């Protein structure tokens, strides 16, 4: 017979678990129903991306970095291209910049819709999952129309983008974001006023702002704790300094704020996409001087950071003047979110840990690389 210790015991929310997004293992030390200590054990999805990239040319690195964070694969491509462009001081044509912004923001909306579905499912409401994924399908169809892929796009290349958009992209894109904007109020209406949802998410797992900054947390989690820090405003890249949008900030830092902030961000992304579609110029889509086979940026190092759906995604790129990068260090937002979890996620019940972990929106490939 099993021996039931009434003191602290260790429960393993193992790598295979419906509520840990991807393969994350959390060793929980529990006292009854309360969690006393959390220890994340990672590395189940380590694919040695950084080592592989050191043996590939710059163009070959892009599909590998697609898998660095496969839910927002456009951002991974873009941040690497940005770093390479900063090293080689390349101009990107305007049409390519506008297309990049459209794709990045569409990818942000898709990621946040997936977050909405999965968070609701973790807290017990099964239906929003299907609603979120249904809208995400319309965005994925747009991506498939452009670059042929549904998840790992290999679209944004050094110096521009790889394909031009077909003629039906612009009307379909407008249609898709219009529908998403209308349905968002339905989706939040399903959950926001529900007393059960409010009890499960309001006031739960508050992350104080100073702890968030100390641990390098970024993105929606940081902004939900009241810190106004968005790289699109603070360190603008691409054409974000010409577009008009707001940065939503919420001040409580609990699960409800983290969830609602992402819904607010979807609305802002819709604004950005409409402006980009209106201002889309004609022209080339790639800088002619960049030839994939012989691209050799001069020696130097640069850190490129962008605002991804999960926080600051960065690539520190060191080049020694040859065809292959010397060092590609990838930095993902989920890494820091997982690092701060044991420092504020204790002293609550397992049900709250599930809600907390869901609203952090951690994606394991970003952590393990």
């Amino acid at each position: 017979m099993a021996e039931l210790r009434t003191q602290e015991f260790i429960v393993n929310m193992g790598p295979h678990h419906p509520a840990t997004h991807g393969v994350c293992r959390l060793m929980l030390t529990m006292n009854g129903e309360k969690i006393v200590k959390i220890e994340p054990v990672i590395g189940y999805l380590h694919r040695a991306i950084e080592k592989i990239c050191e043996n590939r040319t710059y163009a070959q690195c892009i599909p590998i970095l697609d898998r660095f964070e496969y839910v927002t694969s456009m951002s991974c491509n873009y941040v690497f291209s940005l770093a390479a462009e900063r090293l080689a001081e390349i101009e990107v044509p305007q049409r390519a910049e506008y297309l990049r912004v459209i794709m990045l923001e569409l990818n942000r909306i898709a990621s946040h819709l997936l977050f909405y579905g999965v968070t609701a499912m973790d807290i017990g409401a099964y239906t929003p999952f299907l609603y979120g994924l249904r809208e995400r399908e319309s965005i994925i169809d747009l991506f498939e129309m452009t670059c042929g892929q549904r998840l790992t796009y290999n679209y944004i290349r050094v110096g521009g983008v790889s394909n031009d958009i077909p003629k039906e992209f612009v009307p379909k894109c407008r249609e898709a974001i219009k529908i998403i904007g209308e349905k968002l109020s339905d989706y939040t209406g399903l959950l926001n006023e529900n007393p059960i949802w409010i009890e499960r998410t309001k006031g739960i797992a508050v992350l104080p702002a100073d702890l968030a900054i100390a641990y390098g947390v970024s993105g929606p989690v940081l902004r939900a704790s009241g810190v106004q820090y968005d790289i699109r405003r603070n360190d603008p890249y691409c054409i974000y300094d010409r577009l008009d949008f707001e940065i939503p900030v919420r001040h409580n830092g609990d699960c409800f704020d983290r969830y609602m902030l992402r819904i607010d961000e979807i609305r802002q992304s819709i604004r950005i996409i409409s402006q980009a579609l209106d201002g889309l110029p004609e022209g080339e889509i790639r800088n002619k001087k960049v030839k994939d086979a012989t691209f050799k940026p001069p020696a130097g190092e640069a850190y490129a950071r962008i605002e991804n759906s999960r926080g600051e995604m960065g690539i520190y790129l060191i080049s020694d003047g040859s065809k292959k990068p010397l060092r590609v260090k990838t930095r993902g937002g989920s890494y820091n979110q997982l690092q701060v979890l044991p420092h504020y996620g204790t002293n609550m019940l397992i049900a709250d840990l599930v809600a907390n972990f869901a609203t952090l929106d951690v994606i394991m490939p970003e952590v393990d690389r």
Partner: protein
Amino acid sequence: MTGKPVLLAELHGLFQWLHEKLQATGLSQTWVDIITYATLGVIIFGVLSLIALYLIWWERKISAHVQQRFGPMRHGWHGWYQTVMDALKLLQKEDIRIVTRDKVVFFWAPVICFVAAFLAYVVMPFGDRLIVADLNIGILYIMAVTTFTIISLLMAGWGSNNKYALLGGMRSAAQVVSYEVPMVASILTIIIFVGSLSMMDIVKAQSGLIFNWYIFRIPFGPIAFLTYIVAATAECNRTPFDIPEAEQELVSGYNVEYSGMKFAMFFLAEFVNMFTVSAIAVTLFFGGWNGWDFIPSWIWFLMKTLGIVLLMMLFRWTYPRLRVDQLMEFAWKFLVPVTFANLIVAGIFKYFGWYW
């Protein structure tokens, strides 16, 4: 009530016929009784199994249409025999038994759950004179018998030798015991007016106009129904009270280590329980099998019960899940005071004779 329609109408004739045939064979009375009741038991068991299979299919279709997809479509028209196929599959599965389980407890848990689910149907009034045994303590018997499931949940949690299962089993036991109190108090509110615990009497007291149904007897009727349906959803471990089987947290809770037919028994028992509490709701609040003459009474009963089952299914696919301490707080700090207040109000109404 004028002449009844001919086809398929009143099945009570079947029971009469069986009883008379047996008496005609000249066996002693005890044997006749034993054989009659055994046959009735088998028939009810068969009918209920079919209903459970149908309900599983129905749940999948309702959940699918709520979520804007189709659900099972391949096996038969709109997948009607999908559940039969699933049952056949479960029959063929290997019965995985962990070495470190507690053998006796592990084996008997699903059996007790399954049997307890069916025992309540001995006194269920399926239609006009369609009841196996009209005990004069009918509703009390049902309350007693449906409580057996708590033991089986605890046994399943303990016998699996698994922390997750144990946590699930204990939470479930706490939940079911807590929600028994408002459920019984809601039922008592109605019993005050009927004056008898027998199920047939409860239904007969609601015959006549539709406004005789207890749900229309304001103010205590609707309140009793609402508290009853909430407590009943918790009794069946359905969302929003499905902490014991919360997939995302405990990976299926108390039945995580069961596979094959044993798992199927827990699963079927859940659906039969759902049908039981809906049938009790219909008997107490919606007039049982009363209805217009042109449809036989047992069809009325079935339709009304399926309506309440539909309500419970819609709850599941709309609401998120309550946390375990919020659940207990809700039961003890809200439902229990409300139901007892309702009971007192009903008592005052009965004493002064203010109802119709």
